[in-house]
């Protein structure tokens, strides 16, 4: 593990940003101030941040319906994200994308995706592009356990393995696809074994542990970058909240959830490990907590004050037009 103090603090900042950003979203949706279908990443922060801490703006990531975490981990600004979720003209997608399509190509974030599994071939294409352009970049696809039952998963991994593309496939196994427990729809214990169908390298990480995710990602990316082909990385994790904001959570036991939330919180775990190893002080983290809160307050305030998109936007950006 070769992270210096600055890097550690930045990792924590991003995890905290995800946590606070989404807790705020939850409040805003519940209060009826924000609309749309909203899926939160709470509890899975270590996965996105653990992986993205290895990436530059040129490396591409593709995401899912649960995409805020990947955006923030990849460095997308929360002010523009907040404005987007309020449907404002100042949003990162001009208010046209919303939660399920939030994206920022300037940061190498090719988009949340409302179609389960659809980001996987997109990342494969980004990997092909990197390979053919000889850019040295990698592509990372984030997707859920449920998405591994999609044909697009199978087809993409096979293609990437045949062509030895520099793609890291990260499955966020949070034990559920919507309300259905993973073991009802996936008859193998470790999704990682699915890599064997493509003679692909696979790894399993504790998705609640930033350091484990970071380390395994490092190993995986070494493999990708050295031309040995793609890797499937399974991160075992858990979503603290419901499938979407408003989910009554009747389909899972409260005990199970409480256990994860109380004992496996990735931010708590990070802090504990860092403080125990004297890598950072708890006070540094509290300072970050405060800064993130302020950043967030400002983001909400700015978003609420921002204008709604002009009606003319309705038919703009459908096509690229020369000189437009």
């Amino acid at each position, binding site marked *: 593990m070769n992270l210096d103090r600055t890097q550690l603090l930045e990792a924590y900042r991003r995890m905290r940003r995800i946590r606070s950003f989404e807790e705020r979203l939850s409040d805003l949706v519940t209060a009826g101030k924000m609309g749309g279908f909203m899926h939160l990443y709470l509890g899975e922060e270590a996965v996105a941040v653990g992986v993205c801490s290895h990436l530059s703006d040129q490396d591409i990531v593709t995401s899912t319906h649960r995409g805020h975490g990947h955006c923030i981990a990849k460095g997308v600004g929360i002010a523009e994200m907040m404005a987007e979720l309020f449907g404002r003209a100042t949003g990162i997608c001009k208010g046209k994308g919303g939660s399920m399509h939030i994206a920022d190509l300037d940061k190498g974030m090719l988009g949340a995706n409302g179609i389960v599994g659809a980001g996987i071939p997109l990342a494969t294409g980004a990997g092909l592009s990197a390979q053919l352009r000889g850019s040295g970049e990698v592509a990372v696809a984030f997707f859920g356990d449920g998405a591994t*039952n999609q044909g697009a998963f199978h087809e993409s991994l096979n293609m990437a393995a045949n062509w030895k593309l520099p793609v890291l496939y990260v499955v966020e196994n949070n034990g559920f696809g919507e309300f259905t427990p993973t073991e009802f729809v996936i008859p193998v214990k470790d999704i990682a074994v699915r890599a064997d169908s493509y003679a692909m390298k696979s790894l399993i990480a504790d998705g609640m542990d930033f350091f484990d995710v970071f380390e395994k990602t490092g190993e995986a990316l070494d493999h990708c970058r050295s031309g040995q082909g793609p890797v499937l990385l399974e991160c075992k994790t858990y979503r603290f909240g419901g499938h979407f904001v408003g989910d009554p959570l009747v389909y899972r036991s409260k005990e199970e959830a409480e256990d994860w939330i109380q004992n496996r919180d990735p931010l708590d775990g990070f802090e504990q490990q860092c403080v125990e190893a004297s890598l950072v002080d708890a006070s540094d983290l509290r300072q970050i907590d405060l800064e993130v809160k302020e950043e967030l307050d400002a983001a909400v305030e700015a978003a609420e004050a921002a204008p709604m998109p002009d009606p003319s936007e309705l038919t703009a950006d459908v096509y690229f037009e020369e000189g437009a």
Partner: protein
Amino acid sequence: MSRKLGFGAAINEAIQIAMQTDPTVILMGEDVAGGGKREGDDIDEMGGVLGTTRGLVKSFPDRVLDTPISEMGLMGTGVGAAATGLRPIVELMFMDFLGTSLDPLLNQAAKLRYMLGGKARIPLTVRTVSGAGMQAAAQHSQSLYWITAGIPGLKTVIPSNPADAKGLLLAAIRDDNPVVFCEPKLILRTSGEVPEGDYEVPIGKAQRIREGHDVSLIGFGGTVPVCQKAADKLAREDGIECDVIDLRSLQPLDEEAILGSLEKTGRLVVVDESTPRSSVASDVAALCVDQGFDFLEAPVKRVTAPHAPVPFSRTLEQTYIPSAERVIAAVREQA
């Protein structure tokens, strides 16, 4: 006897009746039970992402199947089961997911009977939620019934109220052809009088829901209330009496009802929530300018969504969806 029911409850009741009256009817889809088969005292079912199928897994534990997130596989499985003795209802959670499930509909269900020289029957019903109105954005808001209505071998129906939803769904399930049943978001949260018991609304028959002699308004699904609102206002403000037709079925299309109304009024506006190209709206207009040419006294107007994806922002989404104002403007333009 009838009582007020929500749109979803009407659909739930239809499935309940269909499963009671025919042991070969099954319901399959992603989370149609939704935790319903899990053990545990504090565990309950969700009954679909919108709760529409809640309770069914308790009544028919073996015939309500949660599937993996595998639309191509589950749709194809539905087709195979339909060809071999079952009468499956497949839930395609959102119609946008035709993208991941088209082949079994386009190349299998729709064509098997024809390709087999008439030997096969595919009694498959696909229930799916269509349209905009919930800020669900570009990939969860499309009205893609123009695709299914365009494919020979499929039927496509779309109710505009809970009573029709129940009757059309029962008819769809019992039809020996593959039928796509759309549940438009625009009216999913409405309720209305719904007859009790077992009844069917025939597929292929439109319904006149307001009689008038000045202009024909053709709507379906979520645009029917829009037409009604426009008709009310036009009567009040302009003294224009609209003949409002609810198509109910997009394929087969009730050409007689459309042409009959046009003959009476000479003017027609068709209101379609989908994008304009390759649309049902275009088919209706094309029918008018062919078979109804002699009746035409004014241009046929199509009020549709723009040729654009569905935007997220609420203000944009509201502009996207055909409104009574736009219908009224179209009618006034014709006058």
